[in-house]
């Protein structure tokens, strides 16, 4: 009887007992309570989608397809084009990933392949410390300390690159500022490094020891072992971790709101001020008391929600598929 309860938890032991044909009321109500708490997740996600879409219909219907995806953002004249913000969100998240990916991968390889357990533990603590520093503190530090310091560096880079064909398109420009796409990308990179590191580490830790030993037995160096045994095995999982990091970077609000420079422009110059979807919502929401302005800001929240959900779903799918394949092998 007890084994049956284990194999099929839906029919618990109590119900099969010959002494009590029916499960006691308390037992059943506890199950219902747990189910209700679980269902709350689905209810909240559905409510988020419904209520926010409802609040943003004014914007979507008034502006239309072309209005929403236009570059013209001018709340004073009722022009609410979201393209500069979408661009800023994507470009800052891309910078963050380009910086955070090698760093996170390096740290997770260091933790799994180089350091023995007792030395790896303090490193994990340090990563956890990095993870609990609140977003607003990164923003405060970025705005008051990092941005003024970076401004001088940006300026010397930009003036040094004047006339250089490709590099000046990205790192040149005249309105170079300490609060810029690049500064935001840097701050976001710092903020997503802990999550990308810990997810990659979990994936890399699942590589079977026998694969590693096999590579070593063939005379591989540690690096060759990583390339030949660890990487093929954990590639997909690491891609998933990076995607989850990308989702985090896109939704990061307060730090970005402080260091992005608040300028709704589309430019290839990464050292110029820009704007992103979450930061414009946070900065402008107070002014948008009523009407299409508020609707547009909530609408951008809907776009952000859809974007991050898609990224999370695909990341999860990639990780699950790789996990299943690994277990099967």
């Amino acid at each position: 009887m007890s084994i049956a309860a284990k194999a099929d938890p839906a029919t618990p032991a109590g119900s099969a007992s010959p002494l009590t044909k029916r499960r006691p009321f308390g037992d059943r109500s506890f199950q219902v309570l747990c189910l209700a708490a679980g269902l709350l997740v689905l209810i909240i996600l559905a409510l988020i989608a419904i209520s926010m879409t409802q609040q943003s219909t004014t914007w979507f219907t008034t502006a239309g397809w072309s209005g929403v995806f236009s570059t013209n953002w001018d709340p004073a004249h009722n022009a609410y084009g979201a393209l500069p913000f979408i661009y800023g969100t994507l470009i800052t998240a891309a910078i963050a990933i380009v910086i955070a990916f090698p760093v996170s991968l390096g740290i997770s390889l260091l933790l799994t392949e180089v350091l023995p357990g007792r030395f790896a533990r303090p490193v994990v603590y340090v990563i956890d410390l990095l993870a609990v520093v609140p977003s607003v503190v990164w923003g405060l530090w970025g705005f008051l300390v990092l941005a003024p310091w970076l401004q001088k560096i940006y300026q010397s880079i930009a003036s040094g690159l004047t006339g250089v064909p490709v590099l000046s398109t990205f790192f040149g420009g005249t309105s170079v500022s300490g609060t810029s796409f690049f500064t935001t990308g840097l701050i976001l990179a710092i903020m997503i490094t802990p999550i990308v590191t810990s997810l990659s580490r979990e994936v890399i830790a699942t590589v079977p020891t026998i694969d590693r030993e096999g590579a070593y037995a063939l005379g591989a160096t540690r690096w060759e072992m990583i390339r030949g045994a660890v990487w093929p095995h954990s590639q997909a999982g690491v891609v998933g971790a990076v995607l989850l990091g990308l989702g985090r970077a896109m939704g990061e609000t307060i730090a970005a709101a402080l260091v992005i420079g608040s300028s709704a422009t589309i430019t290839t110059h990464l050292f110029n001020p820009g704007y992103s979807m979450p930061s414009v919502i946070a900065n402008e929401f107070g002014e948008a008391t009523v009407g299409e302005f508020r609707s547009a800001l909530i609408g951008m929240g809907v776009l952000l929600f859809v974007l991050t959900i898609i990224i999370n779903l695909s990341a999860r799918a990639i990780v699950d598929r790789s996990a299943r394949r690994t277990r099967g092998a």
Partner: protein
Amino acid sequence: MMAIASEQQTVDLREPSGWRRSKNQIATVGMWVAFVVMLVPLGFVLFTVIGKGASAITWQFLTGNIPINVLPVTFGGVGPAVYGTLVITGFASLMAIPLGVLGGIYINEYGGNQVLARVINFFADVMTGVPSIIMGLFIFTIWVLHFGYSGFAGSLALACLMLPIVIRSTYEMLRLVPDSLREASYALGATKARVTLTVVLPAAIGGIVSGALLAVARAAGETAPLVFTILVTQTLNKNLFSGANTALSTLIFQNATQPYTGAQARAWGSALTLIAIAFILMIVARLITARFARYDR
């Protein structure tokens, strides 16, 4: 001649040859460099926050009223914000932790391999990746528009943020409890609810509590969900359920862009307070894991 040439080409099998060994060393150095690259901003931000914030921290700073921005940091303090952070986060925890633990219990103990349990587990995972600003906007549309700004609205937003984290960590911990414990209790004739509450849950309680504390630590530092729900004020509002409220994180966000040194100093002091709260919660979580967790990953 030929014989000598082939003799020189004999490889030493004991050690990797020059370039292979160098590549290996370059890779190892690269990993250490990555670690240092991560340490630099962390050290830099902690150094700055402690350097600029430590001098501001006094009892008066933690309890005094928020003065106007032009006044230096020696006047008043950030008492209302400390109160707001503690009460709003506390109330959010009161809602999210019990519900999250129950949800985790459902997925692991009742759901089994049912589609519904798998769907809930999957979406709880997806929900942990939903940006915190979305939770703020969501509570704004369904609560604030109807009932007005309040600290409670902020608690609701933080609870939405914490719920999936608590569900996932509870689920992960319950999964580690061996089935032999459940089977032994069923064999004694206990009902499923009793087995779960008196055997399974206590066995995993260390991990569950530390997971919940990490969720609280994350929520305490969040700003984005609060900006849209508590409508920042400067005065103390003891009523959680009506009227604008304030919190340390929103105070930092506001004061960061103020030109006055007093306001900025209050932001640094608040940042140190906030980091201290988060660190303490994290350390307590670690201690609980080390002391009470019977089944650790």
